[in-house]
């Protein structure tokens, strides 16, 4: 077991020297999170906006379900995706278990409700402001949808960043479906868990520093977008 100061020094060295193992893990994390975020945005944004705009039977229970799913326990998501992708599961034929694809699926399941739920709120607020005017101009809800997505773009970026933050820092689901296999499915969070349990704090701390920097960066970006939005929108 290294002393804490040695561990920090070694961690900084790994980050500054762009250690290949660290870079591989960080790259895989970004790849998986990026893919799941892209899919969650493509599904979650229009779904959330539709929930805000369209009135149909069962809408309110659906909103309650989406809101409840925003707080899904990651390990449970991992378990459900594991069961679905396991050999005897309905999607077992895909052979995705213990691959990055399974991790993308797990993160997608985890963050799509977040993107959908938050974007529903953003679009609903905007619709409340615009509805009478847009209806007066003859815009149907379907015609209003892209208008609201565009006019709410700065606030929607913040919801997408919230999804990113949730996905990149997640460990429970991806370790269950990915297996934390070196050079294959080992991402930042699972590597931190493993290296800490082994007592090798340097890599764990190095990855932790990257995650912290990411958290700060995401928050800074969210603030930047909010300010940019306020300036552009007036």
């Amino acid at each position, binding site marked *: 077991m290294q002393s804490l100061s040695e561990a920090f020094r070694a961690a900084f060295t790994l980050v500054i020297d762009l250690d290949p193992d660290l870079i591989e893990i960080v790259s895989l994390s970004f790849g998986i999170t990026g893919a799941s975020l892209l899919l969650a945005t493509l599904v979650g944004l229009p779904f959330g906006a539709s929930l805000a705009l369209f009135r149909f039977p069962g809408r309110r229970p659906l909103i309650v379900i989406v809101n409840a799913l925003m707080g899904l326990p990651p390990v449970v998501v991992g378990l459900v995706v594991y069961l679905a992708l396991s050999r005897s599961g309905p999607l077992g034929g895909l052979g995705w278990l213990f691959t990055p694809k399974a991790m993308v699926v797990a993160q997608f399941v985890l963050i799509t409700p977040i993107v959908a739920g938050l974007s529903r709120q953003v679009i609903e607020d905007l619709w409340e402001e615009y509805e009478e005017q847009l209806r007066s101009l003859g815009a149907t809800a379907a015609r209003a949808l892209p*208008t609201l997505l565009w006019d709410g773009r700065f606030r929607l970026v913040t919801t997408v960043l919230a999804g990113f933050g949730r996905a990149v820092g997640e460990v429970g689901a991806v370790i269950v479906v990915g297996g934390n296999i070196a050079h294959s499915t080992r991402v930042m969070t699972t590597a931190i868990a493993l290296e800490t349990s082994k007592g090798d704090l340097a890599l764990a701390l190095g990855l932790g520093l990257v995650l912290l920097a990411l958290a700060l960066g995401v928050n800074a970006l969210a603030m930047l977008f909010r300010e940019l939005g306020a300036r552009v929108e007036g």
Partner: protein
Amino acid sequence: MASILPLEFREVGFSAGGQALLRDLSIRFEAGAPSVVMGPNGAGKSLSLRIAHGLLAPTTGSVRWLGLDAPPNDPRVRHRQAMVFEQPVLLRRSAAANVDYALAVARVPRSERADRVAQALSRTGLARVADRRARVLSAGEQQRLSLARAWALEPEVLFLDEPTAALDPGATRAVEESIAAISESGTKIVMTTHDLGQARRLAGEILLLCKGRLVERAAAADFFESPESAEARSFLNGDLLWE
């Protein structure tokens, strides 16, 4: 193309929360000088405009555009009438883009839109702010932009709900000039206002609503010089402000 006018209210009633807000309202709006709907707060002025425009459906009675024998929300009349609200709601884009959006929704061909946007902004004195973000314009400019957006649609009928209620005298004057110009271009104006001076300046006729009923309708000059009903006299004396 046949005119959509006249617009007829037939015994229109509207209730909400168990309270009757409009009762047996029968009015017919013909082409011509502006019709100004007045009355104390809560008389049903804004409500009647929203029903005429098709944003709300009456609880009882009916509203029809008799030129086409169509209800207010009929697609054939949707883009031939427009409305400007007391608080302008502008999209988060430039002044010109706001006008262009309205034309796009009305399915005006892209090739015609730039000219119509420029013309509408020019006629309302907003050409110099065409590229500025709509939401940073002054309150008066925002309301004129709302008028420009409605005017660009070349509506036969334009409903104006207290268009200058939140404006200072200078901005009010500019908005009134735009309203007068729109009226002179042949668009029928139906508007609500609390401002007696504004009604004198713009109205061809006055309709006075009280407690959801039409209590007097007269040519503007007659209404102000010799009101017939007790409510009208009380309203003009400033004694009838709230119901």
